[in-house]
């Protein structure tokens, strides 16, 4: 049986892991957010990255959430994990939104209202970034249970 002190130490280590994961996700979200905004200005063009300023700004909000979480966790503040939880939730909201939009576009194509359907264009960064963020969810769930037990 582990002592309370040992469990706290373990949980600290796990929180550091979340800090790193959160920082990486934050950086990737920020990079894609900037690219989406830059694409609007014509400074960048690559099909899987849409030119969509509003969506790019939303990605930057998700990035800021993850990065603030990483900062708080690295400073040793347990409550910093809240940012990671909300970051994953926001990533899921935007991922699901663009999956639904892709399905709507496919339906439009089937109905003959859209001339083409590009899988590359539909698979927006919001979708696969959400999948990357979702990979953190089971670990987060376990960590939250631990935190509330300690």
């Amino acid at each position: 049986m582990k002592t309370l002190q040992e469990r706290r130490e373990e949980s600290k280590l796990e929180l550091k892991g979340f800090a790193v994961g959160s920082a990486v996700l934050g950086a990737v979200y920020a990079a894609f957010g900037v690219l989406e905004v830059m694409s609007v200005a014509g400074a960048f063009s690559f099909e899987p990255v849409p030119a969509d300023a509003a969506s790019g700004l939303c990605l930057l909000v998700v990035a800021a959430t993850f990065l603030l979480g990483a900062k708080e966790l690295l400073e040793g503040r347990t409550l910093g994990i809240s940012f990671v939880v909300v970051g994953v939730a926001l990533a899921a909201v935007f991922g699901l939104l663009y999956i639904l939009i892709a399905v709507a576009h496919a339906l439009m194509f089937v109905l003959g209202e859209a001339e083409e359907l590009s899988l590359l264009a539909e698979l927006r960064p919001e979708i696969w970034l959400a999948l990357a963020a979702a990979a953190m969810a089971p670990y987060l769930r376990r960590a939250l249970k631990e935190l509330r037990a300690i």
Partner: protein
Amino acid sequence: MEEIRRIREELSKKLGEDLEVLLPARRYEIAGEISRRCLRRREERLTLTDMLDHVFLHRALGIPIFLALMYAVFQFAYSVSEPFMVMLEAAFGWLASLAGEAETPLASLWADGICGGLGFVLVFIFPIFFLFLALAILEDSGYLPRAAFVMDRLMYRLGLHGRSFIPLLLGFGCNLPAIMATRVIDDERDRLITILVNPLMSCSARLPVYVLLAGAFFGAYAGAAIFSMYVLGIALAVLMALLFRKTIPQLRGKPAPFILELPPYLRPTLRSVLLKTWQRGVVFLKKAATILFAGALALWALSSFPWGVPLEATYAGMLGHALEPLLRPLGFDWMAAVALFFGFLAKEIVVETFGILYGVAGEEEIQAAVAAHMTPVTAFAFMAFTLIYLPCLATFGIIRAETGSWKWTLFAVAYELALAYAVAATIVAFGSIVWG
């Protein structure tokens, strides 16, 4: 009452804080003290609500997260509903074709008036239902009161009461219940300001206008164009509130402090979300069966008689040409003028009018017809004008009932007309400079 007010003011001065803040704070202190004495707790535990509030109520991140979520809501309402709109539109197109060529008044009434006008508005039931669905999820999860709390800081600085946020947010659905909801605001000045600026919140009746024009002119950016109308509405509401607070003697002063108890976060249930969506969405269906149907008949009659003459020589054409000089500087033609004129009855009639006047069926055909009469800049100005220019007839009535004053009701109409004209003119002027 005068004596009580005097004592309250004296106490507030003596204690250096408003009693509205001090009394509940003291009440919570006493409740906390009683609970500490009576209950034995093992230790304070971190709840999920505490964790989520740490982020959603964050000083810097709270508002950006709220805006990002609102953007997701409008993208969902616009983009995901598109195929369903297309399917319903095809159904109305087929129904219209049953009458054959619209050569007789009866065939024209069926094809152009009912299927082309009313049918075209009904197509927008999907974005409206999807919008209410997303808002119901946010409401049932417990997020919306947090949004009110987060916005209070900003709103207080801009002269609006924090409690105004919920009526303003309700305005996204319909301004009518939203104005009635201002009854929760105790301070009469705060309430009056909230009523006056509430019609600037973009109700669901205006969504069909945005969907039509944004789809016609802004392609992949249609969702962002629609979202910008909602942001414009919020921005104008807070700006006007600030202006009224500073300039109108009866409304001067600071907003009363805002105290809000935040409920815990909950997982929304499917039943509750669907029920809320239906209850709010069905208002649109009822409207379609009454005022929009009557509007379609009236508009069809005005645009068809005298029978056999060109559209410009019909009664609608005459009305449009009489109004056109007023709106010509904004780039709006006589058809747009007729649409705006009848939009006073209900904002959906703006779209219905386009459907009837252009005499074409189907969203794409009407979009193509609109695109031939407007530029992207004038279309954006038209969207802004529709957002601001007048409350609908029912909202006009409720403003009169809730303020109990014709003076304030007419003031609301006058300032909105002037503001709509100024904003649309600014968009047109700015657009002309930037895009030539």
